[in-house]
């Protein structure tokens, strides 16, 4: 396709997204819209985590930590930019959106830096050190935010304003970012880079022998995964009026893992479907409390015994695939 055609498709898609957002936010009750937004944010988290856990086969269980870094960094940037540029005055819609997206970028970059710091020591080694280091990292980062007084400590960060953080996260921005992240991760997965990652997952020694710089590849995919978590954190922060450290706990990391296991380890579309499925079921069964996670834990164990690659495995859902299935049946 010529680049002009691609640009046209992009513009049309963004326009359609904007229209869909407007329709939803005007005609659908807030509770449903919120669940849809959470689905989008969780899709970013799941697709990002799947790159390291599914495609590369290195198990990270502290994704919520990177999300927290992104959330705090975004909120802090947005609040301070608003203060510096407008001094508490009226902020226009365009300027607000620009500040919000700048904040998300900062959140993503800082989460990536955190990913580099965690990834370099643990990914140099073979084996499952990453799991335990990321578990520790997730707990420690929560602890640090809990004790950071300039970020509100345990009560959370609301920008030091009575109304809390500005609500910038809308349908349009969530799904624009979701589309961007999915596109990036998809292209990475189906490039030579993605093939190298799969080689590492299948046999690290063999991958190294055929000239894959395993450590660099692992760290790189881990950092990309952390960046996406940071972006999701930024979006999530401005959906609430407050960033509170207690929200980014181990349970959240586990929820994201459940999404990619349900969807299929290594499948981009699987991660998206898993994110939607898990988000919606968890939201609809809120009243059952701990029984929900108990059920999911049981589901993980049973899946690992009978179908360890997740429900979709590495398969991708696409129109062509669906048509072929229909033809076969």
């Amino acid at each position, binding site marked *: 396709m010529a680049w002009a055609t691609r640009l046209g498709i992009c513009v049309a898609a963004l326009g359609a997204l904007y229209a869909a957002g407007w329709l939803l936010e005007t005609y659908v009750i807030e509770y449903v819209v919120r669940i849809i937004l959470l689905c989008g944010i969780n899709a970013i988290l799941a697709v990002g985590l799947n790159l390291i856990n599914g495609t590369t086969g290195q198990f990270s269980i502290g994704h919520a930590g990177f999300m927290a870094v992104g959330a705090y960094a975004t909120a802090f940037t947005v609040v301070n930019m608003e203060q510096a540029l407008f001094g508490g005055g009226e902020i226009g819609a365009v300027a607000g959106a620009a500040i919000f997206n700048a904040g998300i970028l900062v959140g993503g970059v800082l989460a990536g830096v955190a990913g580099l710091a965690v990834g370099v020591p643990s990914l140099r080694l073979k084996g499952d050190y990453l799991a335990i280091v990321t578990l520790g990292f997730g707990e420690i980062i929560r602890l640090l935010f809990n004790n950071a007084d300039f970020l509100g400590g345990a009560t959370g960060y609301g920008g030091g304003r009575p109304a809390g953080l500005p609500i910038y996260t809308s349908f349009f921005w969530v799904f624009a970012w979701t589309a961007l992240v999915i596109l990036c991760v998809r292209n990475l997965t189906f490039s030579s880079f993605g093939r190298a990652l799969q080689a590492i997952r299948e046999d690290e020694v063999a991958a190294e022998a055929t000239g894959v710089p395993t450590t660099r590849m692992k760290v790189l995919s881990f950092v990309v995964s952390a960046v996406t978590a940071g972006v999701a954190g930024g979006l999530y922060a401005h959906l609430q009026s407050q960033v509170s450290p207690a929200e980014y706990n181990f349970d959240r990391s586990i929820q994201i893992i459940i999404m990619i296991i349900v969807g299929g380890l290594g499948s981009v579309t699987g991660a998206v479907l898993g994110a939607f499925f898990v988000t919606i079921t968890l939201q609809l069964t809120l009243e059952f409390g701990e029984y929900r996670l108990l059920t999911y834990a049981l589901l*993980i*164990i049973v899946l*690992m015994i009978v179908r360890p690659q997740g429900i979709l495995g590495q398969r991708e859902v696409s129109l062509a695939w669906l048509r072929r299935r229909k033809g076969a049946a």
Partner: protein
Amino acid sequence: VATFFQQLVNGLSVGSIYALIALGYTMVYGILKLINFAHSEVFMVGAFAGYFLAAWLGFETGEAFPFHLAFLVLVGAMIACASLGVTIERAAYRPVRFAPKLTPLITAIGVSLFLQNLGLIVFGASPRSFPKIVEEEVYNVGGVILTNHKIVIFLVGLALMVGLHLFIQRTWTGKAMRAVSVNMAAARLMGISVNRTIALTFAIGSALAAAGGILFGLDQTRIEPLMGVMVGLKAFVAAVLGGIGKIPGAVVGGIVIGVAEQMTAGYISADYRDAVTFAILIVVLLLKPEGLFGVVRPEKV
């Protein structure tokens, strides 16, 4: 100087709890090359088993609890957790034993999550105060506050560790465990029942975790269903520090982590007590990933 000895005493007692739990991690890792995430929940169940056993045996707050009953609480909780450990292995880990490495790891996370939430449902989320099954006495030795709890914790921990060492080094069963950890297939050919040996490893590791849970309850006085997460993490770091798979390494690692943590609490800030463990882990992974007692083994292709 008084602060130093005070933190050293605290560190030694906390450290011996970490060491007890680290032993379970390291024994399982030594044989199955699996990080048994559920181990921290076995530790939690151990503490709760002690709590309910003490209540069942007629513990009343403020009344003296006979020593032999306290001993019974310890042994009872250890037996309960040993059977829990064996059940976990049989139900969840054995079906995925020969699957690719990631599968047992995710299974272990699943079991851990399962037990945590089961704990929240059965025991309730609010913390409970652990019965003082050994009456507390406080001594003041030259400005250092010493309680008989700390001494009991250290001694019980030490006794169990020495017992384990003798068991592994001096008995036929211990020899079988070492053989399975070196080469599972060869051990099977020599007529060792691999399944039984692995089950035994889980039983012993879980019993030690239960003892750790009771000692932890005695030391910290509060227990709750999510208590295993942080303690388990520290114990695992202890196992890595000492060289995972190495039994003396786990003991030394546990003590080092305990002392380092208490020193941080005493000299820097109690808020960073948990962070120092993580810092130690990063340093070990960067400088000596095989741990203090570990040996570098070349990778087989």
